[in-house]
């Protein structure tokens, strides 16, 4: 019996199936293609293709004023666009040597940490969806909605926020924004706890996630991983701690690290980061009580629009208003790199200025683009369903991938 079987398998030449995962596929949450060579359910080889939503941000930025580039950064990681906006403002401030008042820095910290929570909430609930737990996704959207309400109150937009200005914020937090923040600080921990009760020690979820799509610390560093994905592999690199910006050095928080770098570790690192973010927001609220009220930007007439009634009645304000809108700032020559801890890791802007009204060269270090190249290697030998889970737990976002 067994002999016969051997003969028949020897005669059959081994064949692989080629499977196109994407460019548009309901399980990939974005537009990217993976050509998989499959041996049954197992992936033998993979090749990733990106660039389906490439929008030439770096080229467009060479033709725009500094304040107009903010809207491009919205569209990088659109799950946490306020962080991108702030990163751009801080880069320009570094180029122009602008010192932002403490109160504006703390307000920025609040906005950045809220958007980090929104980003991680989406990523973690999508991990739930891909393991078959659709409920958590809908639970989470209630919490995200609260955060977006605050963004709407502060800047008028929800997804592509264009929040803040070079030199601070465009307006102060309104009483309604503070009330929303109170509601967030009350509701989000409750919702998060409920979310964790559903998943963290859930046997089905654990069996599904532990050991799925692991990456070692050495390999993660080789591939220039940053953010929660690197920390899940066990390297405690966080830009907020190593190169603090916006007064992060004054805050007390823990940088969670994992050990295996698998899907479960990535999930848990993001969970803990959300709790830390909540604690940072609370600390920022306390610090804000000591700061003078009503200050929300630096005195940089080159960038901060004067109040409208001044513009109509005051010559100087009118001139500044005109200069800002036409993009005529006195730009110093220089070359800077500034990085922040974005939702997915080190988001950096490299600007070369030759004194013109727009950057001579602007390069964006997009964490997603850099770590997604390891994906093909990470899923080799995995089951197809694990590959989907690995992708969603890495939080691959098409906007940041292609720029």
């Amino acid at each position: 019996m067994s002999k016969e079987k051997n003969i028949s398998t020897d005669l059959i030449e081994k064949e692989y199936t080629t499977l196109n995962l994407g460019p548009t596929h309901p399980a990939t949450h974005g537009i990217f293609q993976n050509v998989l060579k499959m041996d049954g359910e197992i992936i033998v080889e993979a090749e990733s293709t990106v660039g389906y939503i490439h929008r030439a941000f770096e080229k467009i930025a060479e033709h725009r004023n500094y304040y107009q580039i903010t809207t491009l950064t919205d569209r990088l990681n659109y799950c946490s666009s306020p962080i991108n906006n702030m990163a751009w403002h801080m880069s320009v401030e570094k180029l122009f040597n602008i010192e932002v008042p403490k109160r504006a820095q703390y307000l920025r910290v609040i906005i950045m940490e809220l958007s980090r929570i929104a980003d991680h909430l989406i990523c973690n609930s999508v991990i739930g969806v891909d393991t078959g737990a659709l409920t958590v996704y809908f639970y989470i959207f209630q919490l995200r909605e609260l955060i977006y309400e605050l963004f709407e109150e502060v800047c008028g937009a929800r997804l592509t926020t264009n929040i803040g200005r070079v030199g601070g914020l465009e307006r102060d937090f309104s009483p309604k924004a503070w009330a929303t923040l109170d509601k967030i600080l009350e509701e989000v921990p409750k919702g998060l706890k409920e979310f964790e009760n559903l998943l963290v020690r859930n046997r089905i979820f654990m069996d599904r996630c532990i050991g799925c799509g692991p990456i070692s610390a050495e390999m993660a560093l080789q591939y220039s991983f940053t953010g929660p994905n690197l920390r899940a592999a066990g390297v405690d690199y966080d830009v907020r701690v190593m190169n603090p910006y916006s007064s992060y050095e004054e805050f007390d928080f823990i940088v969670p690290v994992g050990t295996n770098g698998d899907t479960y570790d990535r999930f848990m690192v993001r969970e803990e980061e959300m709790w830390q973010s909540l604690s940072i927001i609370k600390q920022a609220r306390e610090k804000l009580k000591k700061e003078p009220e009503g200050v929300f930007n630096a005195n940089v007439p080159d960038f901060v629009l004067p109040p409208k009634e001044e513009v109509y009645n005051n010559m100087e304000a009118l001139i500044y208003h005109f200069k800002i809108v036409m993009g005529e700032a006195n730009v110093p020559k220089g070359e800077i790199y500034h990085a922040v801890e974005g939702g997915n890791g080190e988001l950096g802007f490299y600007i070369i200025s030759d004194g013109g009204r727009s950057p001579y060269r602007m390069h964006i270090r997009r964490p997603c683009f850099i770590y997604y190249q390891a994906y093909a290697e990470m899923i080799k030998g995995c089951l197809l369903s694990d590959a989907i889970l690995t992708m969603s737990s890495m939080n691959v976002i098409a906007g940041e991938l292609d720029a």
Partner: protein
Amino acid sequence: MDKEALLVKVQEKLKAEFGGGFISSELIADYPVFTLNRDIICDAVRFLYNDEELSFQFLTNLAGIHYPENKGHELGVMYQLHNLRKNYRIRLKVFFSINEPSIPSITPVFKGANWMERQEFDFFGIVFKGHPNLKRILNMDDMGYHPMRKEFPLEDGTREDKDDKMFGR
């Protein structure tokens, strides 16, 4: 070690190891920047990776630059390296002629340089010698030009479906 000390330290080590391959160094904003000869870039990155004291074992990013006025050195690439243990950050730069835009790839040292180099090949036409899979990454394969070079306008000049009688380009 502060930035100036780091600048001097790396400069000494690079000079001792590569001699003429080292061209210049300066402190730009908060970054020590070193300009090197293009032929030694991979060796220099490997040397800095393996050096026990400096051990720059994390590649932050790399970006192409184009200065059309610098005749003979039009194209350039900048590399940013990071020592995560001691938080040292440096920037390396190489410049070369646009007529011969080739440079050794650093993928043997950093696997993560793979897509970063492909991106700069795509946008600037810089050929990275020794790269395992050097092809376009974000633009379409038959594009025929390298759009981030300064001579290309923002809008695609090869398109014929746009009428600019009224608004111009």
